Each structure stands twice: as structure tokens, then as C-alpha cells.
């Protein structure tokens, strides 16, 4: 009744090709954006911004990047956290060595640095597939981890191997308060989401998907695997690099090499699988699930006033979180994005299903 596109006629190719062809979707997204920019700043507390929303948004960027590689191009990667690390350390070195650079440029360069490294480690994908590729990317993870911990130049000769960042200044405004950080990250997320959404339905995205579905057939119809696979690695690592720089500068402020370890890589892969492979929206759902749910689970006993020891609470959190992952994967193997799609389908027929 509410969600029906009857009467919305498309009279031009432009109208047919737009990002959100259904008017209700457009209003929904606009409303959401308005809420995120104008509503949330007045509603959310500092705790929500700094501990939940900002990390969620930053990891969403990394998840979108990984989703492009895994979900759209079909190349498994276990090295996303390392590419985030490349972005973070690149940004750190740029700000330390060239302090006059604008942070937006630093962010873009961090992305490009990660993209270069990503292409390098993507080369094996031209020869190997599936689990073998996963192992090759895992090697990237360990190699880069080792470099972050042991190459002194990368950490500006920090004695302990951990680095700390100066407060970011953008056009004279200090990104210090949680609200400013949130608005900045939100803007980056919006821009990168828009770019990703357009990329995956353009020439590049179609080439990725053809490669994913059957690489031999894709080659036959004239898609060069070298281009499609390496471009997927490049774009994916670019997103990871930007996310890494934000994670280091905006969220943590100071980090040790272990901040970008294999655990984070696996978490990102879980986000993509649970959120929905091959769906940009799914990356948001996946990141929300993995970032927010453990923290909420951890605090539920407290809110309900159940006295539990800290250890029990923490173990309970892991148990419930683990079983929820299993339940979701059994209930909907295609991820939360698929549930969303089914929901929209149902809404079209509501309240009169056939």
C-alpha cells in the first residue's frame, strides 16, 4: 500500500537508470541522511558517537571494500586488515613527514598507497583461486604485520613500535569533538558508498561480476581477467586504506601494530558474509552486526539489572554472539541484505498478499 511504484512512469533513460528508481526508496534514503546529519547529532551521546557509531561507520567502509573484492569479484581475501594498516601507516608517515598536507589529501594518498600494495598482492589471483588465494592473501597479512612491527622507519623510530597522531585539522577546524568526528566520517562514508554503488553497476562492476560467476566465460566474451581482478583488488584496497587511516586517526588516535592483525581481517570477512555478499547495503548490516551486537550483548545484563560477574558476562557475550552468527547463517545464508530484499518484496504486496 505504502511501498508501491504504481503510477511512477519513467519517461527517459536517465530516469530508468538512476540509482534509486522507486520514489519511496529515494525519500527513505533522503530521510535517513537528514536524520543522520540533522537528527542524530542532537540525540546521540558522546559515548554512542565515540564507542559505537564512529567505529561502525569506519568499518563499514572497509567492509564495502572487501565486499567489492569478495562479493562482486569472487576473490577471497584474508588480508583486509593489513591493507587498512597500509593506509594507516601511510597516512601517519605523510602527516609526520609532510605536515602541511591537508588531511583529505592524506586520506586519498593513504587509499592509493593501500591500492598499490593491494594490486601487488592481487597478482597471485591471476593464477590461483579460491582457498589457495585466501592463503596467499593471508601471507600478505602476516608479512605486512611483520613490517609494521619491525621496520622502524614506518613508525618514525618510535621505541615501542606504537604511534600516535596529532589532532586533525581540516580548513582550520579541529576534528576534536565526537560530533565533528562523526560528521566527517559520515561524509566520507556517504561519498564512498555513492562511488561504490555506481562502480558496481558500471562497466567495472559488470566485469567483476562476470569474472566472479565464471571466469572462463568472462574471458570468452572479452573481459580481461588481468584488468578485472586487479582493478577489484585496487578498489578494494583503496577502501580498506581509507578506512585504516580513519581508524587510526579518527577512532584510535594512537595504535600499536596489533591493531591491524588477522583477527580484524576475519571480522571484516564475517561482516561481508553475514551482511550479504555482493551487496553494498549488506556491508552496512554486516558492520552493524559485528561491531554493535557484542557491545550491546555485553551491556544487556547490566541494563536488566542482573548481577553477573565481569567474566561470566564476557563469556556469555561470546557464546550468544557466536550462536547468533550460526542462527543467521542457517536462517538466511545469503545474509542480512537478502532479508531486507525479502522484506521489501513483502511490503509491495502488503496488506493484500496473493
Amino acid at each position: 500500500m505504502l511501498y508501491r511504484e504504481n503510477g511512477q512512469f519513467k519517461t527517459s533513460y536517465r530516469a530508468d537508470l538512476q540509482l534509486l528508481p522507486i520514489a519511496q526508496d529515494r525519500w527513505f534514503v533522503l530521510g535517513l541522511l537528514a536524520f543522520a546529519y540533522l537528527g542524530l547529532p542532537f540525540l546521540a551521546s558522546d559515548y554512542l558517537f565515540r564507542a559505537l557509531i564512529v567505529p561502525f561507520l569506519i568499518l563499514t567502509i572497509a567492509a564495502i571494500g572487501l565486499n567489492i573484492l569478495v562479493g562482486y569479484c569472487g576473490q577471497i581475501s584474508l588480508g583486509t586488515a593489513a591493507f587498512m594498516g597500509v593506509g594507516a601507516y601511510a597516512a601517519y608517515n605523510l602527516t609526520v613527514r609532510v605536515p602541511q598536507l591537508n588531511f583529505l589529501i592524506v586520506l586519498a594518498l593513504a587509499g592509493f598507497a593501500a591500492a598499490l600494495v593491494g594490486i601487488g598482492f592481487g597478482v597471485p589471483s591471476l593464477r590461483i583461486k579460491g582457498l589457495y588465494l585466501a592463503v596467499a592473501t593471508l601471507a600478505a597479512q602476516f608479512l605486512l604485520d611483520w613490517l609494521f612491527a619491525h621496520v622502524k622507519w614506518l613508525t618514525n623510530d618510535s621505541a615501542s613500535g606504537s604511534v600516535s597522531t596529532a589532532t586533525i585539522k581540516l580548513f582550520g577546524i579541529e576534528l576534536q569533538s565526537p560530533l565533528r568526528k562523526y560528521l566527517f566520517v559520515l561524509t566520507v562514508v556517504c561519498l564512498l558508498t555513492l562511488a561504490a554503488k555506481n562502480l558496481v553497476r558500471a562497466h567495472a562492476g559488470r566485469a567483476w561480476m562476470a569474472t566472479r560467476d565464471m571466469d572462463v566465460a568472462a574471458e570468452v566474451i572479452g573481459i580481461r581477467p588481468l584488468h578485472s581482478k586487479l582493478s577489484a583488488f585496487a578498489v578494494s584496497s583503496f577502501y580498506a586504506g581509507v578506512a585504516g587511516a580513519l581508524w587510526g586517526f579518527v577512532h584510535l588516535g594512537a595504535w600499536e601494530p596489533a591493531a591491524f592483525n588477522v583477527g580484524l581481517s576475519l571480522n571484516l570477512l564475517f561482516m561481508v558474509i553475514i551482511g550479504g555478499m555482493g551487496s553494498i547495503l549488506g556491508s552496512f548490516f554486516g558492520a552493524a552486526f559485528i561491531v554493535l551486537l557484542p557491545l550491546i550483548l555485553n551491556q544487556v545484563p547490566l541494563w536488566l539489572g542482573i548481577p553477573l560477574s565481569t567474566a561470566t558476562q564476557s563469556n556469555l557475550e561470546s557464546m550468544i554472539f557466536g550462536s547468533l552468527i550460526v542462527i543467521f547463517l542457517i536462517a538466511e545464508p545469503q545474509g542480512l541484505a537478502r532479508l531486507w530484499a525479502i522484506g521489501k518484496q513483502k511490503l509491495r504486496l502488503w496488506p493484500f498478499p496473493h
Partner: protein
Amino acid sequence: MKPKSAANQISFAAALVVVAAGAVSAAPDARAQASEQFIPLLVYRTGPYAPNGTPWANGKQDYLKMINARDGGVNGVKLTFEECETEYKADRGVECYERLKGKGPTGASAFDPQSTGITYALTERAPVDKIPLITTGYGRADSQDGQVFKWNFPLLGTYWTGSDVLIQHIAKKEGGFDKLKGKKIALVYHDSPYGKEPIPLLEERARMHGFDLIKIPVTPPGVEQKSVWLQVRQQRPDYVLLWGWGVMNSTALKEAQATGYPREKMFGVWWAGAEPDTKDVGDGAKGYNALALQHGAGLSKVHEDVLKFVHDKGNGTGPREEVGTVLYTRGVVISMLTVEAVRRAQEHFGKGKPMTGEQVRWGLENLALDQKKLDALGFAGVLRPVSTSCNDHLGASLARIETWDGAKWAISSDWYEADQRIIEPMAKHSADAYAAEKKLAPRTAEDCKS
């Protein structure tokens, strides 16, 4: 997929979302009455470091309970506290900090992050939120320089004072610093900021006395050390310094036993010298030495009070046997320093009032705990005097050596004082580099007085 089940799933998912949203927005605001002092407790009771983190956390909590039960708080201000599990991870630590920093009528008093990694992350946030960090015997070594690190208090010791004392002790055993020339000393360290902190000082000492420093990293958490001890066997160092935490320590001792490296030649940092590290190795660790961060194991007056006012009432946080163990006592010491900083702040800003983080920071910077006060608090034989200032956030840099006799830890040396003539210039240099990187202005004389 059948439409029915799809609908079920959607309602299930929707229910979850509603629960989640409700939970986030309905976080109850536990504002209590005004005369309460909130002390946040960052702990880890799960994960690879839990065996060491748990007694530490229990000691911290028991002391606060004891102060409430025995004295009714600090000048009538009751102490409240809440724990948050960090799992020794930096991101969870940051979340816990954000969760606890605003609790209580005046916000969090001071944080003890229980992890060098988390300390690094919180060092960036503490000045913004105006909450001090107490990192007793860990954290950034250069943060003893209060001119730059206004909000960090590595009270009683840093890794530089600790490693300095170890070298002094080895030199004494050898019969003088000149005897160190040509000796080989291996540092077996946790490959993380924690393990790397002592390296600059040890390198400086190696340069001064002409001994070889062999650095052997152990990948955290350190359960696999075969190759490390193979290296030790090949290089045959005269001494091994063990900079481990958690399961890494007991593994190292077992491997040393298997390799046949004499445990008498092994010296651990104060985080590698507690019961969980040696208990399982038992006789195999006999003769192994470690730094004692002033206190060793054993019961003193304060422990008796904890037993009487907390454990006898059935309020003990952990098992009764744990009271008096090394890490438990360290937790007690940290809570005592926090409470005494609150008391000192009250003397300055008004007795019987809850203090803000900023006021507690003043208390920490003007701590003056002489032996008489410490003895009155029940810390006779546990601690020596602590006095801090604007320049010196360390308060004391004394340490002793303790030795495991196969069943328990016993103090086996006299007091040593770290050589600040070496450490202070290094700390200053490092802190200045930090200030330059962060574009921090040095503190003014008024800032020091206020």
C-alpha cells in the same frame, strides 16, 4: 524459500533490531546521590592474559570494598565502582573507557588500563576528557615527564626504571659495572609495545658498560617459544631478561628448563614475577628471579584488613587464598594510590566532597605519602615513600629482586634505586619528541601550581 518462513525471519530480524535500538537508547543513567566517588575498573578476566589479570582486578576491587567497609569511604564520600572487560584489546579498552568515563556524580576519578597498548590509546583521550591515567609499573616510560604528560602517572616505576634496576643487580652480582664488559645479556620480550619499552634504556646501558644486548622477540601471546630457546641455547647469553606477560612467562620457564638454561640466570620484569607464572612450573622454576615493584608476596596489615572487612563478610571478589599474592597486592597498591589521590585532592578542594577527574589529577601530582602515612594505611613493609611533583610523575623508582623458591616468592635483595641521571634525559628527549609530534605546548609555571 517458502513465504511463511521468510516472514518469520523478517519478524525475527525486526525484533532484534527493535531490541538493539531500545537497548542503546534506554541505557539507564545511574546518577546516584552526590556524595559518591566513582572509580572505573578496566579489567580482563577472559582471554590469554586472564590468569594474571584476574588477581590484579580482584585486588583493585577488594581494596575499594575494604575502604567503604572500614572507613565508610574517603571522609564520608563512598566509593563506587564498575568493572568493564577489555580482554587486553585496545579497541575494547577504548569502548570501556568511553562507557565508564562519565559515570558517577563527578565522572571517573582515574583509569588504570591494565595494559600498555590500551594506555597508548587512552593517552590521546585523557587530556580531552580531563581524567588521569595511573599506570603503575607499566605504560609509556617517557610519561614520567609530567611537563609533557600532564595526565599520565606511571607511579612507582616504568620499564626504564625496572630494566635499570635489573642491570644494577646483575652488575652487583658480577662485582661491579666494569665486569659487565663483554658479557651477553639476552632480552626475551613480548613482541608488543609492552615488550619493546625497555629496549632504549638497555641499549644505553649496553653502550655504557660494553655488554652485548641480544634481543629475541616472542610473538604474542607466547605459547610457542621453541625457536626462541633454541636461539638462547646457540648464543649462550650470561643472563636472560624475561619481559613476558601471561602465559608467555610460564612457557618460557618450561622451555628454559627443557633447554637446560639455569633459572638462576633469568630475571623477569615485575609482570613476570607472580604466582600464575611459576606455580605450574613449580620446582622447575626454582631459583628464577624477578623484579619486585617494591612489594613482594605475603600478608601485611592491609591484607588483614581486607580479610577482616571484606572476605570475612563474604564480600571477597576472588578466592580467599589469593589475598597476599603478588598481582593481588599490586591491585591493592593501585587502588590505594587512587584513593590517596582522592584524599589529597579533598584536602585541597574540600573535604567530604566527590572529586572530579581534574581534581584527582591534582591529587596525583601532589601525592606526599611518607613512611608514617603508609604504615598507618597498613602498607608497612609493602611500600616506601611516594612523592610526586609537576616534573616527576613517577613518585619513586625503587625496586627489589624476588626469587621463587619452588613454592613461593621471597624477597632476595636489598632496595635499588633506578639511576635517574640516565633515565631522566632519555625520558625528556622522548617526551619532547612526542610533544613536537603532537604540537603540544609545554606547561606553564601557573599550570604546575594550579
